[in-house]
């Protein structure tokens, strides 16, 4: 019965693991396993969670980004309220202009909020961009939201017929039709870029991203699902072996008597 002993030995480690994990699952509420959340990168990767890289705008050496929770952060410092998405950031010699979906934030050179220009103050909805050219601030709008009388044929974007460009006065908060070629503005526009690692890390620590409870992890290890289809088959095989071993063991014991 050498084969019997060898088979028994090979299942030994797995059986111990199944017994312990089964014990843990049985007492999961008492051990509060479902309240322990794991969010390490490799685990989330393994489970197929996509962790989007947070993006922001780097202007004058400062990083402007949205924290996913209604705040505009400038290098980790909470500067203003900002409903996602943060659409664009531009700078003049006076300060910075950060356009969020709830309004345009006017910040000084130290990135302190001066004031916010929102819908209630007369900012048309669907503002698409804020751009600075020759120290003048231009806002691009969806033409359907603007009064048609203010549209000048020269301001209509030739590539995007629905866009209207207006010049913004940061002191009086007034908008007036701009005499500018849309192409010139388009070249000045900056695209959002992934944040550097250090900011990425602090942002992740502050916000609650996806996570997996310890209970789920143990259950998946116990059933073999953690390793996919083959994991389940492997646990099935162990189960089958245990059945065979106990039957043949009993038969061998009876024979010897």
């Amino acid at each position: 019965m050498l084969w019997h002993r060898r088979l028994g030995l090979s299942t030994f480690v797995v059986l111990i693991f199944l017994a312990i994990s089964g014990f843990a699952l049985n007492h999961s509420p008492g051990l509060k396993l479902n309240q322990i959340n794991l969010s390490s990168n490799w685990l989330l990767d393994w489970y197929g969670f996509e962790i989007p890289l947070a993006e922001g705008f780097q202007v004058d050496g400062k990083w402007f980004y949205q924290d996913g929770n209604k705040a505009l952060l400038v290098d980790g410092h909470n500067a203003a309220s900002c409903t996602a998405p943060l659409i664009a950031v531009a700078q003049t010699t006076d300060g910075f202009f950060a356009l969020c979906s709830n309004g345009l934030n006017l910040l000084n050179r130290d990135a302190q909020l001066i004031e916010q220009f929102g819908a209630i103050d007369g900012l048309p909805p669907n503002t698409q961009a804020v751009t600075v050219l020759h120290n003048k601030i231009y806002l691009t709008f969806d033409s359907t939201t603007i009064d048609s009388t203010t549209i000048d044929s020269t301001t209509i974007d030739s590539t995007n017929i629905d866009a209207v460009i207006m010049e913004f006065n940061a002191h009086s908060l007034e908008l007036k039709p701009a005499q500018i070629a849309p192409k010139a503005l388009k070249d000045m526009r900056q695209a959002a870029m992934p944040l550097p690692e250090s900011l990425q890390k602090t942002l992740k620590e502050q916000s609650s991203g996806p996570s997996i409870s310890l209970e789920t992890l143990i259950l998946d290890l116990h059933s073999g699902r953690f390793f996919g289809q083959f994991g389940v088959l492997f646990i099935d095989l162990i189960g089958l072996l245990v059945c065979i071993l106990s039957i043949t063991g009993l038969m061998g014991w009876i024979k010897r008597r």
Partner: protein
Amino acid sequence: MLKQLYRAALLTTAAACFAITSLASFSVNAKGVYQSGPDFFTEVFAQQQAESKVLWLTPEIRSQAAAIVGHPVRGLRIRYHQSDSKTAWILEEIGKEMPITIGVVVEDDVIQQVKILAYRESRGGEVRYPAYTAQYKGAALQEDYQLNRNIDGITGATLSMWAVNKVAALALYYHAAVNQSSATHQP
């Protein structure tokens, strides 16, 4: 016969569903923007020539304003409209979770009008009714930067009421700050 009964039952169910959903949508209609800032100023200064001005928040104004509303105020400047001794302000304050946009008109250190311009919370929107906001007319600021009168609250709108009270006191304080600074600037 059975078919007719079945059809009647189906119709009643559909009618009931429609009634419930329309009722539900009525009750959440408190949310919304009632008037834009420029429209508010135009209405307030209908006959007068009003100037758009800016109050820069000096450290002293900031610290006093923070004491009035109970948290640091955002921004470095506040925009207002003025015509002689009358000023109009648009200020925001969080009721429970969302900001309430409130327009306040002050004349001779006394509130002339309070108007809710935008309300974004799902409950407590009763503060926008003129019957409630009329209570603020004639209110002035005490020595301790509180309103000099009691405002009758509305059940279920306590937090919104506190927000309106704070903004009313803040507007009175800003009005005083404007007059003070213009008095010192004059030769």
